[in-house]
């Protein structure tokens, strides 16, 4: 299977990949094996680590049900670069994970990274000219705090690393590359042009890779969509976001779009009405998920679905580069009906079916095992199954999914396709959602429930759900194991339910 290498640079990269993972879990599919590579100096970053945990959980679930044709959820394979290398028997031993570890920045100031103290006086003066005192004293372990001039220097090591070499070795002509970055920060703004330039060179540590030079490359560059609180002690100041964006776009117009080095470039941004807490990095930097990140993930799906013939490259030059933007109907609180057809077609059915799957597991499953779907087949769904690794991992993933959905609804712009109410802890962090009704088919906003008016005794709500589970279980019969059967009957029943009651 062809691979789609996705480089997620900086915090935005992590958060977009998180949204992508949620989409793939809900049944969105590409024809590629997704290989995420997260490049973020902020190793303790809350968003980064949540994304990595999510990707690992996804892999665990996918592995358990891989190859079962009647399942729709978690269908798209996600691989680590190391597993690709192992499959191809290339022999190189590299990190087994999703995140590339930048060397020499742990607990280091930028001036230590460039060996400032050992420079002669002329070079010291040159460095002082290029970098402010704040820059030189910057703690690199929490990222580049909106300074692309630092980022471009530090991230240069990625393209000389063993990982980049392994990536180049594993890259096949039918594969594709996608780069996610924000344009208004430090890590993404610096990393994207650097990475693109090095891929297009087709040279890695002296070795020439012609198919890498002519690779199909797409990217999304995320423009400002939030502000941070004003804090005189912080080096991050959102007043500079627009200026930095303009400067970077000017640079891109010459070095990325201007020289046709990219096959498809997606632009996205929003008038920033929401203000995040000003945290420079580390474990506390956990921002609510944002619709812009979900829309950015859609760009990856769009790119993956683009025909090869539209993404041809010759001698490192894209022959027919595409530039795309994203829009919605005018609303401050988006429902599915506020999306245009392309986005709606991907999101509406998949997110809705997964929402009901998740809801049933959260609210009902434990107490509704005494039904045919659970007990009448050779692989029983019983309390033992609920204590197995597969189900526990799925429970963790689903909780993250609920938090993600609720965060999307709380943010500005709000994406609220379902009528859910946030459940928060004392720190006002979302820990779950509640629905406050048993009329579960009234939960999809702006889509009325289809009722059977001729039959007042018609089954409805959770009873209808269980009835569809029983029907699906009978139709599917026995499966190779319980995990596969479980996912199969929920895939089928949520599909028929949503089609019957809503869409």
């Amino acid at each position: 299977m062809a691979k789609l290498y996705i480089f997620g640079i900086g915090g935005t990269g992590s958060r977009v990949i998180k949204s992508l993972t949620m989409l793939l879990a809900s049944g969105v599919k590409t024809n590629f094996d997704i290989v995420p590579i997260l490049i973020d100096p902020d190793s303790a970053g809350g968003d980064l680590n949540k994304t990595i945990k999510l990707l690992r959980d996804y892999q665990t679930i996918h592995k358990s049900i891989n190859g079962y044709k009647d399942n729709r959820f978690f269908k798209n394979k996600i691989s680590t670069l190391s597993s690709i290398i192992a499959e191809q028997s290339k022999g190189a031993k590299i990190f087994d994970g999703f995140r590339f570890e930048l060397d020499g920045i742990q607990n280091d100031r930028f001036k230590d990274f460039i060996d400032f103290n050992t420079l002669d006086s002329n070079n010291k003066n040159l460095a002082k000219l290029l970098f402010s005192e704040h820059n030189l004293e910057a703690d690199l372990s929490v990222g580049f705090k909106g300074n692309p001039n630092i980022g471009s220097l530090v991230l240069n090591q990625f393209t000389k690393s063993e990982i980049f070499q392994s990536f180049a070795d594993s890259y096949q002509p039918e594969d594709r590359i996608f780069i996610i970055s924000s344009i208004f920060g430090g890590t993404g703004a610096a990393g994207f042009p650097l990475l693109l330039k090095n891929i297009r060179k087709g040279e890695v540590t002296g070795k020439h890779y012609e198919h890498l030079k002519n690779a199909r490359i797409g990217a999304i560059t995320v423009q400002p969509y939030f502000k941070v609180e004003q804090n005189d002690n912080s080096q991050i100041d959102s007043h500079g976001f627009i200026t930095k964006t303009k400067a970077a776009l000017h640079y891109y117009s010459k070095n990325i779009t201007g020289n046709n080095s990219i096959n498809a470039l997606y632009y996205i941004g929003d008038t920033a009405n929401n203000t995040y807490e000003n945290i420079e990095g580390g474990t506390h930097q956990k921002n609510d998920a944002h619709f812009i990140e979900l829309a950015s993930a859609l760009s990856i799906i769009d790119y993956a679905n683009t025909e090869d013939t539209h993404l041809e490259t010759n001698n490192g030059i894209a022959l027919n580069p595409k530039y795309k933007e994203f829009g919605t109907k005018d609303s401050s609180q988006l429902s599915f009906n506020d999306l245009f057809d392309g986005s709606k077609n991907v999101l509406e059915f998949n997110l809705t079916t997964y929402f009901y799957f998740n809801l049933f597991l959260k609210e009902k499953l434990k107490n509704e095992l005494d039904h045919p779907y659970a007990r009448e087949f050779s692989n029983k769904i019983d309390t033992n199954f609920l204590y197995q690794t597969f189900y526990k991992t799925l429970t963790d993933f689903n909780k993250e999914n609920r938090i993600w959905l609720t965060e999307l609804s709380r943010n500005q712009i709000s994406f609220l396709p379902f009528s859910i109410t946030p459940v928060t802890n004392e720190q006002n962090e979302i820990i779950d959602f509640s629905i406050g009704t048993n009329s579960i088919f009234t939960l999809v906003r702006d889509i009325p429930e289809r009722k059977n008016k001729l039959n007042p005794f018609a089954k409805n709500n959770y009873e209808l759900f269980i009835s569809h589970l029983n029907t699906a279980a009978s139709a599917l019969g026995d499966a190779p194991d319980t995990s596969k059967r479980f996912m199969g009957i929920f895939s089928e029943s949520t599909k028929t339910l949503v089609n019957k009651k809503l869409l």
Partner: protein
Amino acid sequence: MDLNETFSKIYDVLGQSGAFSDDLFQEEIYTNIGIAGIVISLLLVTTFYFIINRPSFSKSKHWLIILFVNFIIAFVIGFIVPLNVFKSIGLEYETIQYILFGLKVAVVATLYFIIWTYCLKWWKSNAQGTPKLFLGKF
């Protein structure tokens, strides 16, 4: 062997009532009551599995409710039908005779109900597999 004889033997397994049983046989009441018991049990079992057919009414306790309804209906039939027939031809028996026969009819109808249950409980429905009176799937 005709139906009247067959059903009389089934009901008499639970005890013969002398002249009362002879008159039941004579008036061919066994046939009517026997067929009624089989048909009503079948209808109630079908109602449980395929007409009510709801997850919220699919547990063993719900099956027992229908079984009890079947028992009551059979008892009433076993009580009323001989009473009416015998009265119409001027035969008189003590009420306890009618009650005992009603109970016999109800017990046999319960057996019919269980037999129908084990014929139909494997079919697709929201109560599929209910009840489990014996080991495993049974």
